[in-house]
């Protein structure tokens, strides 16, 4: 594709967003950058892997937050020295990073291989089971999680100041976004979308369906592992409760708020979630109507329910629809020229079709 072909309005807007984000530390307060935006980037990165699997492979995964936690726990075990909780291997910080990423990727490969013959709703349920079993593994085997979690985890020196962590999150987010988007046009990405649409046809064409799904899950595990490292550096600690079923659902909810088939939506959803989470308590009169901090989950649940009732495509879907209503002819032309990945197949399968 030519440079000119890339100059669509969508890409220009995204480039502008990245420029604003680069300049943000000198524009906004330290709290906004280091708390709100860093968290947004970390959660967005994790949610983007859910979007990647759902969009290209038709697999809605609830196991991403588990892998997120595995990376954090492995770093904590490897990097801390004696006296702390966990295995206390006391390795160099970057060796610990490598260890955490390798373990997370291997775990993702194994889990993906077991789940590789299922898709859709079966995959969702199986990954929910993974998530809960993973939580129990970390909650019960205290050798690798320390009773009550691993605390006082230090960042590598390179990322010492909080603002560098923000930039690390931004860099990884941009790389993941560009990588996932361009993956859709590679041979692997196209085969993956073929597997999503018609696994039997792809199998008879000689593609290894299970292997494609496993590799996609492994790649998503690798990326979410990077996010998990950022998260454990940002938090400074990790405990089993932080990967229990509640946070697991929150990550899926983030992907759903943004729209489960749009990569931008992952970060948009994370931003909305963190904003609500951070500033809800500050709204005037909010505790008068019974919504206090303690009822936060109810608010989030109702928001998700409303979004699913109104538009299963999430906020991005709502934005697209509004834009379509404002400028219908122009939007139709723009959609064909973006050169994005193949359109998602409709989920209707009332009359069977050839899928197993």
């Amino acid at each position, binding site marked *: 594709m030519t440079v000119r072909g890339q100059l669509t309005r969508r890409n220009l807007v995204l480039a502008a967003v990245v420029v604003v984000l680069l300049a943000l530390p000198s524009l906004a307060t330290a709290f906004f950058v280091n708390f709100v935006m860093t968290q947004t980037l970390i959660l967005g990165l994790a949610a983007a892997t859910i979007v990647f699997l759902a969009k290209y492979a038709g697999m*809605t995964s609830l196991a991403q937050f588990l892998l997120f936690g595995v990376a954090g726990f492995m770093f904590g075990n490897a990097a801390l020295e004696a006296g702390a909780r966990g295995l206390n291997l006391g390795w160099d910080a970057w060796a610990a990073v490598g260890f955490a990423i390798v373990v997370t990727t291997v775990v993702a490969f194994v889990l993906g291989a*077991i*789940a590789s*013959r*299922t898709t*859709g*709703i*079966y995959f*969702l*349920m*199986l990954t*929910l*089971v993974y998530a*809960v*079993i993973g939580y*129990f*593994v970390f909650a*019960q*085997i*205290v050798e690798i999680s320390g009773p009550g979690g691993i605390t006082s985890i230090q960042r590598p020196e390179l990322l010492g100041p909080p603002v560098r962590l923000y930039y690390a999150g931004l860099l990884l987010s941009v790389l993941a976004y560009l990588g996932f988007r361009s993956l859709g046009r590679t041979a692997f990405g196209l085969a993956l979308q073929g597997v999503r*649409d*018609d696994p*039997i*046809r792809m*199998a008879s064409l000689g593609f290894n369906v299970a292997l494609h799904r496993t590799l996609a899950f492994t790649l998503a595990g690798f990326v979410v592992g990077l996010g998990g490292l950022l998260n454990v550096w940002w938090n400074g600690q990790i405990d089993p409760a932080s990967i*229990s*079923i509640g946070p697991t*659902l929150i990550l*899926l*909810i983030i992907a*759903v708020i943004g729209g489960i088939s749009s990569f931008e939506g992952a970060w948009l959803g994370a931003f909305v979630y963190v904003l609500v989470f951070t500033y809800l308590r500050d709204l005037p009169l909010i505790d008068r109507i019974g919504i206090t901090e*303690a*009822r*936060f*989950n*109810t608010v*989030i*649940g*109702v928001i*998700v*329910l409303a979004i*699913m*009732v109104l538009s*299963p495509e999430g906020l991005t879907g709502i934005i697209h629809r509004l834009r379509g209503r404002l400028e219908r002819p122009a939007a139709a032309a723009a959609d064909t020229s973006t050169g994005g990945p193949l359109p998602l197949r409709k*989920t*209707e*399968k*009332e*009359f*069977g*079709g*050839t899928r*197993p």
Partner: protein
Amino acid sequence: MEPVGIDQHRPSTTTARSRRVEPRRLPVLVAAAAAVALAVWVTFLADGTPAGPATENPGKFVVTALDAVTFAGLLFVAASGFTLIFGLMRTVNMAHGSLFLLAAYIAIRVQEAMVGRSRNIDPADVAVLDWLVPLLVGAGVAAALGLVIQQVFLQWNEGQELRQALMTLAITVVLADQMLREFGGLAQRMVWPGAVTHFLSVMGERYAVTRLFMLGVAVLVGVLLWLWLTRTSMGMVIRAGVDDRQMVRALGINIRLVFAITFFVGSFLAGVGGVLGASFAGAAPGTDGSWLLNALVVVIIGGLGSLKGAAAGSLLYGAVVAFSPAYLPSQYSYYAIIMTFALLALVLAVRPYGLFGRPA
């Protein structure tokens, strides 16, 4: 984009199956070898475990086996509603655990009101009715709420499986939060009726009659469900609907009504499971999530939408839950949860859609 026809369905699945026969042999062998190895371990070798080898300590073995079967009964009650709803409507009701917990809380409240004390209820004060009425009230409320959820949120977007699953997940989040507000964060317990709160002597080991009573209730539920599905015209329609919804609809049957009734019954079963579970192990925040997990594991092992599968899955999973803490070496008892995962991986490697499942 692809040839669409109802009769395309069957041939494609059979070809898929015969194509996969060859690579399946290895997983089947592995599964068989694992089963034999586990049997040998439990019978002869399990030294240094809390229970000891079955040949040396048969009492412990019998008690563990009874634990497995009685827990499987509870699992079956909890999972049968889930699998019934999925089998007919293809709806994965992620709110199943919430209905389970809600029924438990309400039954506890009703029982407290009936006995007239809110704490330290003595089993001797609890007549059979003081247990049975709360059971019916709790399960009834769960069933009514389930019906409301189905009518408001699930009826109009039938067939959109993921959307429905996500909606019920959101409902779970809301319900869990509201139950925490209403019933507090402390664990509460339902009290078994005094008539069954005894101990039996089984080969030198004490065994609680309440667990056998629980199994009895589960068997009763299973038999009633089976009679309903196989001996009534409504059950006939449901079984036909599981096989082919479009055809049932084309025959002029009001499938909307059948859906509503099925969802009502499925939610009622979740409620019965919740009351049994609250009597067995108590109710607390988080119980909803762990019982959603239990129901999911059972139906993934047994196969979604199959009552036979739910029974088989309950027995297998119940056996793993009961045997692994007793027969793992003492210092590794914490690793029992990994055995659940191993069971799941093994079953899925042999049959990706569960023991009795069929591709959707």
